[in-house]
């Protein structure tokens, strides 16, 4: 199905989709900082309105460099200030300023602000919101239909809470995984009972949503008679969330991820896979070399989320929220 029709060359693609000149790896943080908006945040690409996801991920990517390089420090501080100023009264961060109640970037904002003393109060409110937020169960329509047709259209344990993209709806893999990463970052050891319970529920949900053969997609394993396939990016995020003790779900997940990272793997997938390998202290040389090769050849992708995650994954310093620097 790959398109093999006539090709008409046009340089505009590169101007629109790929940065003009590939910087060296050491320039990556500065390249990220250059895309900062005047309000201190970052958008999904250069010039786009700031949003909480890209601002949080970029702050995380700049955090190490910000300790030693003054321009990065200014950029990082403006980014964290943008986040602090946009926290909702209830403690969450909404995606953008459109007015839509889309609080799913909250765990990323918490990770970005966690080690900043000025953000202590904001972080506390954010974690209270995160711990209290749960996904909703299956709706009456689907339950009734399954009852009437005497069959299960989907194969999901609807008793698990997890975390949803939007409160009041069903829990899915990515928001659940990032919430777990944020909770583990805040309580690397001896979490309070309420957090322990949420982490245990999240772990169960990820096990329930694992695809046959391993790995994760957005969060559905089967529809009608068809088993659904995993995606590399969500698989890597789920593996980040499960950092800790290895089990069959994790082993299957890594096996699936290895198979999913084929020649067409995106920078986003490579970056997330590298982060998950670092979190599990697996050998990441090949992943690192592939990501470096792509970045040196093409420059950072226009997509800010991918650029920030690639910079973060290649960060030479330790990433404490991944458990790096801790024993065992």
């Amino acid at each position: 199905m790959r398109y093999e029709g006539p090709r008409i060359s046009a340089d505009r693609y590169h101007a629109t989709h790929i940065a003009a000149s590939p910087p060296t790896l050491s320039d990556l943080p500065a390249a990220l900082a250059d895309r900062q908006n005047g309000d201190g945040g970052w958008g999904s690409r250069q010039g786009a309105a700031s949003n909480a996801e890209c601002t949080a991920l970029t702050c995380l990517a700049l955090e190490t460099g910000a300790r030693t390089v003054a321009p990065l420090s200014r950029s990082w501080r403006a980014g964290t200030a943008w986040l602090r100023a946009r926290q909702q009264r209830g403690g969450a961060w909404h995606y953008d300023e459109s007015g839509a109640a889309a609080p799913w970037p909250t765990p990323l904002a918490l990770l970005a602000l966690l080690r900043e003393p000025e953000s202590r109060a904001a972080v506390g409110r954010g974690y209270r919101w995160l711990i209290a937020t749960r996904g909703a169960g299956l709706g009456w329509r689907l339950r009734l239909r399954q009852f009437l047709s005497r069959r299960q259209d989907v194969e999901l344990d609807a008793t698990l809470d997890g975390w949803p993209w939007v409160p009041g709806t069903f829990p899915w893999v990515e928001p659940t995984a990032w919430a777990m990463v944020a909770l583990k970052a805040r309580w690397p050891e001896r979490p309070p009972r309420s957090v322990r319970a949420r982490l245990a529920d999240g772990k169960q949900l990820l096990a329930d949503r694992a695809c046959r053969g391993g790995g994760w997609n957005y969060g559905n394993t089967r529809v009608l008679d068809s088993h659904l396939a995993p995606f590399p990016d969500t698989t890597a995020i789920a593996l980040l969330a499960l950092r800790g003790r290895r089990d069959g779900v994790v082993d299957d997940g890594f096996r699936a991820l290895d198979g999913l990272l084929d020649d067409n793997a995106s920078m986003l997938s490579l970056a997330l896979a590298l982060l998950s390998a670092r979190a599990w202290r697996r050998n990441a040389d090949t992943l690192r070399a592939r990501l470096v090769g792509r970045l040196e050849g093409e420059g950072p992708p226009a997509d800010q989320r991918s650029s920030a995650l690639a910079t973060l994954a290649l960060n030479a310093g330790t990433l404490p929220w991944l458990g790096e620097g801790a024993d065992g």
Partner: protein
Amino acid sequence: MADRRDFLRAAALLSLAPALSGCERPPRPLPPQPWTERAHRRQPRSATAILAAPAYDGTLVDLVRRGAELCDLEVRGRRVVLKPNFVEFDPGGAINTHPALITATIEAFRAMGAASVTVAEGPGHRRDTEYILSASGLDAVLRDTGARYVDLNVDRCRAFAAGSAYTSLERLYLPDTISGADLLVSMPKLKVHHWAGVTLSLKNMFGALPGAVYGWPKNVLHYAGLEQSILDINATLTVPRFNIVDGIIGMEGDGPIRGDARASGVLVFGRDPVAVDATAARLMQLEPRRVWYLLQAGRFLGNLEAEQIDQRGESIETFAQEYRLIDRLRYLRPSLHDVG
């Protein structure tokens, strides 16, 4: 009688608006006319055009031009946004609008004087834009044509009052790229859909709503009711529309993602999305009135009945094929009860 019983039972079940796997709000009574005056777009008659298109090849540019001309479409000076269907990607499947058709449409509309042609999509399952573009071949289209691509999932958006009240969502968030277009071209694949019955021009607009607001999958909309959301989204979109259904290779069976490819060799064009979808359903030998949301859409968004549609180009009979259905959708087949 068994057929009628099956239809009624299935219609009752479908009116529950199947959710992909999410949860939905409890039912509430619908007003007799759940749409606003602004959303009422049904004209006395509509035109659709069917053109033979045996392959994804160099003839497509002329076919797109001809289809647009047969439907009296004027694009000169307009900022056009193409909305293909890239809900998911499966290298062996027929899920997506073919890149060659997108290329041909870009070239045809440019040749017809469009001020700009942008490709925009908000994939429902995947967040990895680079992967979707690369795996589907859309990146080659963008490279070759120089067209701009907008990921609608993260596009800047604004709230609009819903044009109808089939769901309880009073406002819908629409990306600026969509609401600011002079002409929005829905480019779905010719497919059956295991929940909604068919996925064509109207259902394709699900992908126009931003994942950043509605999640991946767009669970808020599933929660509010899949078919009801299709109606509210299309009632809220007031941008002038054109529709091109990619039926060169369609999908039968367990669509929209896990079904089987079916070669139909046809393109369907039209400005009225309801008329286009009704014609496409008839090409799959399905009765559009048995698709609940199409039946509702035929009350205010466009023309559903064959008698109100001027069929241009080829006839439906020339290209109609019996698309295979999963058991639960068998009631979609026309029967004697649908005659007259």
